[in-house]
């Protein structure tokens, strides 16, 4: 295994939650390597530990035991502020419920991560517009989230995840609130980013349908990985052409 190509390497990751006197182990020793440029689907029932694992991968949480190397750097012992910097520069998040700031335009939502690394306002605007162009939302940059459809909101979220040019995108059930066609469109964006820009994508889902577009599936159960398989992914772009033509989106 080429050590240098490991974007993510976790060794014997354990996470224990303390609910009063009771110890609840959420992760019971997970080892995993993800190479740069992979498209990984993480699957499992609720309570399987996949969300806890994602939170640790996303540097939102720290493991109780074990080590986590991101781009060769051990981040498991970092301070909160250092983790914030890692989240800002190296990781882009996409959530099931979009998590955009209300009453804030699409453009400003996309600019948000740049606020936290002292980017000049001109560069901020430029980079945000670039990211919005990338997800096909140019012309709607001044719309508020409430004026956008679910699919469009999720695309704003993807643009926000991309704006700091991260090496990793973590998507937590990104299609959970979207219909089939819009889901495919979002997956198509991910696939293009993965194939054209070599961005590593880790996608948490419980839908087998969606997981098939990833080239590797990691399945969790009871805080452990029970299956880790690679296979030829389906292509969202192709599947989109096979679908009936889109109905008009409700909100222009």
């Amino acid at each position, binding site marked *: 295994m080429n050590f240098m190509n490991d974007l993510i390497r976790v060794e014997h990751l354990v996470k224990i939650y303390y609910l009063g006197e009771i110890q609840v182990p959420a992760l019971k020793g997970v080892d995993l390597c993800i190479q740069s440029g992979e498209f990984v689907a993480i699957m499992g029932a609720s309570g399987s530990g996949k969300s806890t694992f994602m939170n640790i991968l996303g540097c939102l949480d720290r493991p109780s035991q074990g080590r986590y190397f991101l781009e060769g750097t051990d981040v498991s012992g970092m301070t*909160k*502020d250092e983790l914030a910097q890692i989240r800002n520069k190296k990781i882009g998040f996409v959530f099931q419920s979009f*998590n955009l700031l209300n009453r804030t335009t699409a453009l400003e939502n996309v600019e*948000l991560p740049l606020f*936290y690394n*002292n980017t000049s306002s001109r560069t901020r605007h430029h980079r945000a517009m670039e990211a919005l162009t990338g997800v096909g939302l140019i012309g709607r940059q001044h719309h508020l989230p409430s004026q956008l459809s679910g699919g469009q909101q999720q695309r704003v979220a993807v643009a926000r995840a991309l704006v700091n040019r991260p090496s990793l995108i973590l998507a937590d059930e990104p299609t959970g609130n979207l219909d089939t066609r819009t889901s495919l469109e979002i997956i198509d964006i991910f696939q293009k980013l993965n194939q054209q820009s070599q961005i590593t994508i880790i996608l948490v889902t419980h839908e087998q349908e969606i997981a098939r577009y990833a080239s590797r599936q990691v399945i969790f159960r009871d805080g452990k990985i029970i299956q880790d398989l690679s296979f030829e992914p389906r292509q969202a772009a192709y599947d989109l052409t096979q679908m009936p033509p889109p109905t008009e989106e409700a909100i222009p």
Partner: protein
Amino acid sequence: MNFLMTLRIAFKALNRNKMRSGLTMLGIIIGVSAVIAMIAVGSGAKARIQEQIASMGSNLLIVLSGSATSGGIRFGSGSVPTLTVDDAKAIATELPSVKYSAPVLTGISQVVSGNQNWSAVTYGTTPEALLIRDWPVVKGRALTQADVDGRAAVCLLGQTVADNLFGEMDPVGQVVRIKKFPFTVIGVLALKGQTTWGQDQDDTLYVPLTTSQRLLFGRNFPGMVRSISVQATSAGTLQQAEEEITQLLRQRHRLRPDQENDFSVRNLTEAMSTAQESARVMSLLLGAIASIALLVGGIGIMNIMLVSVTERTREIGIRLAVGARERDILYQFLIEALVLSLIGGLIGLIIGVSASQLISHFFKWPTLVSLQALLLSFSFAGGVGMFFGFYPARKAAKLDPIEALRFE
């Protein structure tokens, strides 16, 4: 994240909920304007009292004669003249703590000029009396030792007397009749205004002591005076002067140790200082009460900021997820609280100053708005915002991003 951007976010957040921000600010506005207006009222009163003290003359002692006993009946102070002109001279020359002393004869006398007449307090005294009271002459000249030595029939008029007898005319050189005796007006005294107890200090006239002894009051007790005005060399020697005068006069009056004083020494400055002290306490008290209003306003800010943090938990989660550090969130909410309190403080400043003007205009109450009070209340408002904003801001900054993102 730099300061300007944080400031912009704060303004945007406050702008979103105008009604709520306005009401929160109202607490601070009321607090700051109350502090400013109350301090203005208090220091206005203090300034007026100070002015009155200055008008009385500084470091002033008055020695009153009397309190004599005759056949078991005790008379009040000044009822029987026991002080002499020589006592006054001795006080001035023998005591190092005394700067000036002036023997004074007093009485009410009727003054006539042409077809006008007026009744005024008349002082027969020496030139030092006006020095002691720090009372300049605005027209004509002051009394001189030559007037006293020569028993000149001259007088100095207070403004009120001059106005009542002569109106617009210049009284200097005119002849008035005091108790039927003709006196030439040699000058008019400067305007002094009222004493703290409302007595018109300008309703008065001064004549040489010797003249008054001969023509006006002195017939029953020749060489005796009713009181002696004394000015100590400084505020520090006032107490000493009081003791020295008592000793000297007891000695001069040949009083045995078991005998009571046949005179009394009064310290007027002390009485005035008490009035001044009470004005200061009032000013402090008013300020303290108003500060409580400001404090309550601060609690209002804290309350609203706590609600705001809870409402915006998800926003905080998003910001943390995309890379905000704890201190970024802390500053964001702290600056929001600070903006609330400082804008409120600024509006309160304007209202407070206007209120002070209105109070002095409509209630004729002197107010004094000092820059110090403005700065103090404004920075106090800022401090209140900072203090009461800190806890909610810290609460926001310490949120767990995972929990915050899941918050509904």
